[in-house]
């Protein structure tokens, strides 16, 4: 399995950069996995870019004030799927019990995890040795 690692300083500008890098890698994976040129507008690429951006932004916005730890990203892929892991040393996240936003009411915040869980095919969380690890998977794109 191929992999690529990225270390982010905890700023929103770096979260933006991570989303842009994720978009470029997803676009390259699309070409490798399908043998086709990635279309300018691809749901697969959009899902990866949005999810990585939301995850990194959440990590940076929710870090404790005295903790300035970096956010670590790993991109991996095989023939079937594109995988992303986002690690940080923030407080433990209640990933499974965080309430989904009420989409029938307008609200300004609280969409990040919903976007990640909806856009990706799998999204799971674990806490290991003080690290939050968010694991995301998106299946090989079938769109041409």
């Amino acid at each position, binding site marked *: 399995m191929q992999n690529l690692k990225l270390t982010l300083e905890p700023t929103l500008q770096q*979260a*933006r950069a991570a989303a842009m890098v994720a978009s470029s890698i997803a676009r390259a994976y699309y070409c490798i996995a399908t043998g086709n040129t990635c279309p300018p507008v691809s749901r697969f690429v*959009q899902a990866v870019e949005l999810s990585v*951006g939301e995850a990194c932004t959440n990590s940076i916005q929710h870090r404790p004030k005295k903790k300035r730890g970096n956010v670590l990203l790993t991109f991996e892929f095989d023939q079937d799927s594109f995988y992303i892991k986002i690690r940080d040393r923030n407080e433990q996240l209640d990933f499974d019990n965080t309430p989904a936003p009420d989409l029938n009411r*307008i609200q300004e915040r609280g969409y990040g995890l919903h976007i990640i869980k909806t856009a990706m095919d799998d999204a799971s969380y674990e806490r290991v040795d003080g690290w939050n690890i968010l694991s995301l998977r998106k299946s090989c794109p079938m769109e041409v």
Partner: protein
Amino acid sequence: MTITKIITNDIAVITLQGRFDSAAADQFRKAVQHDFLPAHYVIEMEGVNYIDSGGLGCLVSLLRQAQKRSGTVKIARIPSKIFYAFELTRMNRIFDMYDDTGMAVNSFTATN
């Protein structure tokens, strides 16, 4: 993100270009604060190539401010590459969307 504003007859047309994400949220909030607050807003988004929940939250916040003045926010010329974020959050049901900026502006005068 580049933000330009034109305010005419209680309607502000705000044209955005670039990435409308959490890193650009403060810039947007400052840009829509005026001495004179219009009731209605048209957000022209043709030049926006990315929007995340931070950008969407800014639009909801502006909508709430406008509604307090009996106004609203309409979206014009939204590119397909960012429509996905609106769909995921169902914001496409909250905001009226127009293919043409002039039509969005005229829709206010038609209802006033």
